[in-house]
């Protein structure tokens, strides 16, 4: 058989490649800076209700980024998101509400508490694979929520815990704009850290574990360590998000932390794009904004239109069901999520008038 000619990378080709990588990185940073600047600018023009929405999206995005790293990059599907959020939030009620620790310290400690819980599930999950991990986190959800419910009933009753206003040194975060800016900083920090970790050695190890853990272990990656560290690190971030959200809302009850909440986060990363940091942010925005979108769309319909009345009477069920529809549609039609969809659209225009077949040259 004739040996196929192998393209050896020449020095100049290597240089060209480096130039290309640097150029891509530059565009990426430039994009991030532009988006960040726009988001900061919006704090000074947006209405209070929109800033509230923005804050909700940002806090959700922090949790979604962490879940996406765990699921999309490390390949561990978790239905325990609500449990980790609850751990963070309830730690915050104790440390911040009862012991009056300073806000930032409470955030850190809540993250540590959630990270501990993550470690507790992470270790036994080493023996499980695939489906069993999903169901293990599912069991975790019920156990944590049960514990939190007991705790809540014994201490304060069904009204839940109230939290003091968040205060960083002498700056009290009170107005919607303050909260918007604080959560924006938090999300920017999360994006930067998680993107950095994922692009480095750890991230590559995680991807290898996700794609084939046995093969990864043969190449010298400590699979157990990757999984446990992944669980702990992502749970930490989710715990911080839970605590932040607790302060933002000002009240914590277990009723918030349903299985549906955990599924909503999974919906965020599926819709946004598995394994993509910007995807998690976009997905969080999409899922949080979805109910408002329905209301907006219905508002456009003339009220005499027969469907409008039907939609209005069933608005809660529609809101509850619609993200299920989106989960199904994205998994069937665009498993890469909105990020992949955007790339597809972009490629279409870039390669116009030629038909792009999605092959990366």
């Amino acid at each position, binding site marked *: 058989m004739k040996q196929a000619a192998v393209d050896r990378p020449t020095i100049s080709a290597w240089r060209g490649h480096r130039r290309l990588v640097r150029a891509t990185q530059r565009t990426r940073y430039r994009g991030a800076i532009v988006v960040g600047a726009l988001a900061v600018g919006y704090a000074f023009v947006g209405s209070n209700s929109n800033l509230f929405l923005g804050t909700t999206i940002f806090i959700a995005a922090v949790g979604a980024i962490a879940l996406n790293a765990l*699921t999309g990059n490390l390949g561990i*599907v978790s239905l325990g998101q609500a449990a980790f959020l609850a751990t963070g939030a309830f730690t915050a009620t104790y440390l911040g509400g009862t012991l009056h620790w300073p806000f930032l310290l409470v955030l850190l400690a809540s993250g540590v508490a959630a990270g501990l819980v993550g470690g507790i599930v992470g270790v*036994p999950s080493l*023996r*499980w*694979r*695939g*489906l*069993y991990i*999903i*169901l*293990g986190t*599912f*069991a*975790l959800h*019920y*156990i944590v929520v*049960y514990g939190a419910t007991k705790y809540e009933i014994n201490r304060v009753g069904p009204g839940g815990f109230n939290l003091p206003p968040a205060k960083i040194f002498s700056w009290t975060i009170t107005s919607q704009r303050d909260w918007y800016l604080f959560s924006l900083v938090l999300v920017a920090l999360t994006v930067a850290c998680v993107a950095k970790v994922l692009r480095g050695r750890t991230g590559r190890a995680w991807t290898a574990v996700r794609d084939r853990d*046995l*093969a990864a272990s*043969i190449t010298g990656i400590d699979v157990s360590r990757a999984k446990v560290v992944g669980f702990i690190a992502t749970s930490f971030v989710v715990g911080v998000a839970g605590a932040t959200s607790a302060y933002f809302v000002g009240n914590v009850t277990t009723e918030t932390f349903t299985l*549906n909440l955990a*599924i909503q986060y*999974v*919906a965020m990363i*599926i819709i946004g794009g598995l394994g993509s940091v910007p995807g998690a942010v976009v997905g969080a925005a999409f899922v949080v904004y979805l109910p408002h979108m329905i209301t907006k769309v219905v508002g456009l319909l003339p009220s005499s239109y027969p469907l409008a009345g039907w939609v209005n009477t*069933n608005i809660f*069920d*529609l809101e*509850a*069901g*619609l*993200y*299920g*529809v*989106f*989960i*199904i549609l994205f*998994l*069937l039609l665009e*498993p890469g999520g909105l990020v992949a969809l955007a790339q597809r659209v972009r490629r279409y225009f870039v390669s116009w008038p030629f038909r792009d077949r999605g092959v990366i040259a």
Partner: protein
Amino acid sequence: MGTLIGTVAQGVALGAIYSLVAVGFVIIYKATGVFNFAHGQFMVLGAYFAYVSISWVGLPFAAGIAVTLVITGAVGLVVYAALIRPLLGEAIFAPVMITIGLSIVLDSIISITTKGNTYLLPTPVPVHGVSIPGTTTRVSNYSLIAIVVAAVFFVLIASFFRWSGTGRDMRAAAENPHLASYAGVSLGFIFSVAWALAAVAAAIAGIAQASSTLISPDIGSVALRAFPAALLGGLDSVMGAALGGVLIGIIEMLGSQYVGSDTRDVFPYVVLLVALMVRPYGLLGSRQVDRI
């Protein structure tokens, strides 16, 4: 002592329904490797279909149940063909998440069409049952019927897998889909049968549950508590589902009797987590071996 026997008896009755639900998970998992999170919604659909065909259409009880089983089986087929089939062969994540999405969608469809109303399934047998000798516990007729139905169903399904041609093909396909398909087993057919069969099992469980309570979307939550049953028994073992179901039922009733009635939501999961740490593949499940 009397309380203990009574509690165990109630646990077995509860466990009968759990095993009916769990066997649905097992059938689908064995065939397609997917865990069906929408199983609880299949139960609810079954119960509502039974109500419609008996109370609205006016069919006799047995005929109504038969029609219900056929319709729910068809729903299972449609779900398989529309949602699961396109994703087979991909990472386990996608089809499992599809069933989660489906459960959300079905929940809201059920809630919109029934407007949250609950109904009473007209049943031919009176509710009051027999008391267990030597105890004060009464077991309702429906619990007894549930136990009998579950027992009959398990005998049928075990014989089906053991002796029928399709059942043998299904076992072959579960063991090694590629080899089975080379030997002429139609995988598409096997998978469709599995989904239809599981939906039928769900409908039976839904009707069994609904006949002792009301028909409401809540009966789907039984499926959430049957997850541990399926896993405890071993996700790929039909008899494991029966065993796991009964065990979880007994544990749940014992827990609520002796520890506190609010523990019943969490006890099965604690047992599950502990059991999974000791035997990650369940009591009767087969151990997975990784080959490079």
